[in-house]
């Protein structure tokens, strides 16, 4: 793996890490398996791209993306809580609807941002070399989002989200409206996913309706890698682990991309297989270490 590839992996890991934090919120905290993310990631990208091509400041466009993602999450949660549609199905329905909606928003399947203003321009103009700009910005966003979520879950409202995920019946008996809490939680999760999508689009130079495919897979893999490798003994630790889990996942891909043994190199089509093997190694390594230490 070259330095450039490693930097690229960390950058991708951090920007998708914001999505992973959103996935952690629904999947682990709320116990709400949410597939909306495959649609809300490109939703954030679409909104941000349209805003930027209409001359809106790229940072401001992120706010619109957050709002769009929040609404998408709310739709899933309302379908689930108010209309009693199973959470998985509710989120699938929102996800497939978003495919068409994203094409509507962009007026087509793809908007190029290659020449446009992005969040990087200000940082690069300030003298940061281009190759570090992504890491700097996504690192800052990742830290802010993690800090915000950890703080938020300590507020009364956040406590209600935690309690709803743990034991919805108990919390209802205490007089908390769990429907409102689920709607807020799923909305917040998808807002973060959309923010991640907006940043991804600005990073890769285009918003594309197909860019959400496989988001939930990467999200769940990163959540589990993070929890296994970095632990989840406290809320703060769990969210930092989710963010770092995403970085490990992307490093595994980078490693798989660059794997060569002398004259032997894998076929390009082996990429997914190698990535999956590397993730398996990352997951079982801590266990083996523990067993060895116990002897």
């Amino acid at each position, binding site marked *: 793996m070259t330095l450039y590839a490693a930097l*690229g992996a960390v950058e991708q890991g951090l920007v998708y890490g914001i999505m992973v934090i959103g996935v952690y919120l629904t999947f682990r905290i709320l116990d709400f398996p949410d597939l909306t993310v495959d649609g809300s990631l490109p939703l954030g990208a679409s909104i941000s791209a349209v805003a930027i091509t209409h001359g809106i400041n790229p940072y401001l466009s992120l706010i619109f993306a957050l709002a769009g993602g929040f609404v998408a999450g709310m739709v899933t949660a309302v379908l689930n809580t108010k209309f009693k549609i199973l959470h998985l199905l509710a989120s699938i329905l929102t996800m497939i609807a978003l495919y068409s909606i994203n094409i509507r928003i962009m007026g087509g399947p793809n908007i190029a941002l290659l020449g446009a203003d992005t969040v990087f321009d200000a940082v690069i103009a300030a003298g940061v070399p281009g190759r570090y700009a992504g890491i700097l910005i996504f690192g800052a966003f990742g830290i802010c989002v993690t800090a915000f979520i950890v703080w938020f879950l300590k507020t009364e409202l956040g406590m209600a989200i935690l309690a709803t995920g743990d034991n919805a019946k108990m919390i209802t008996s205490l007089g908390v409206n769990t429907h409102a809490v689920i709607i807020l939680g799923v909305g917040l999760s998808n807002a973060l996913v959309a923010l991640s999508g907006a940043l991804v689009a600005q990073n890769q130079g285009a918003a594309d309706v*197909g860019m959400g*495919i496989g988001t939930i897979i990467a999200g769940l893999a990163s959540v589990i890698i993070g929890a296994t490798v970095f632990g989840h003994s406290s809320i703060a630790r769990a969210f930092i682990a989710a963010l770092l889990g995403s970085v490990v996942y992307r490093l595994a891909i980078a490693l798989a991309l660059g794997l060569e043994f002398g004259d032997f190199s894998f076929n390009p089509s082996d990429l997914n297989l190698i990535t999956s093997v590397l993730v398996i190694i990352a997951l079982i390594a801590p266990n083996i270490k523990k067993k060895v230490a116990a002897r």
Partner: protein
Amino acid sequence: MLFFFIVTLSSAYAEKYVISVNQFVEHPALDAVLQGMKDYMKDNSLAVDFKVHNAQANMGTANQIAQQMIGEKADLLVAIATPSAQATAQALKRAPEELKRPLLFTAVTDPVAAGLVENLERPGGYITGVSDLLPVRKHLEMVLQYLPGIDRLGVLYNAGEANSKATVETIRKLSGDMDFTVVEATAAKTADVYQAAKSLVGRVDAVFIPTDNTIVSALESVLKVGIQNRLPIFAADIDSVERGAAAAMGFDYYRHGYQTGAMAEKILTGASPATLAVEFQQELQLHINALYSQKMGVEPPEALLEKAAKVYR
């Protein structure tokens, strides 16, 4: 004589070039592009070490590959298909000056809309390439010659593919001139293609499939509908004709790749991408599948059979 001299001279000083490739997905057409490019290098005795990466249809991976390629310090970067080209262009834009390399895109339909170049004639930067923009008018003329007097042409595509959408818009614009109406059906993924094809039965006289990744991947299900309902299916690439489409004005992705190879050679031997105009495929070949045409209830006209470069019977 001078030509020979130059050839011997250049092969005597032949060095091994490195080309890093960012391919978006495994797909017969895109694989053919890569093969065409490799074969051009072989046919012209250019020693090239290809570092091929495939994003397996994942945009996040395409981005990572783009950054990986910057680090590989190749002599030339090649990106196959629009998403990979955009990701590579973005990585290139932010790479430090000493790591910047020429980028050649291929299998990209509209390089201007994709933001890759501003001017097709003089790209002006590190980026140029080969566009697979379909000569839509020629395709439609062939269909009308094949089935004179059709009123309604069905177009089957994925509305999520930028390339297809551009093609369909052109078809719609040309339909007034050429005197037929367009009926569209879309499928967002390969599993939806069969249903979308069925929805056209009874509403159209023939179906045209642009170079759409989703539909072409599930071509057999469209052909099944065509055979069952005696509805002729036309394609826009010749690989599909071999699989059973009635006919296509050969957009040959292998030749597309070969043409990309020729452009790569120019850059490797010193030409600047800034002054190399974006190229398009020049010649088109007509391929006809007579066997499947009959299965779909039509007989290919003699005039076309005579012109065809290849006829499957």
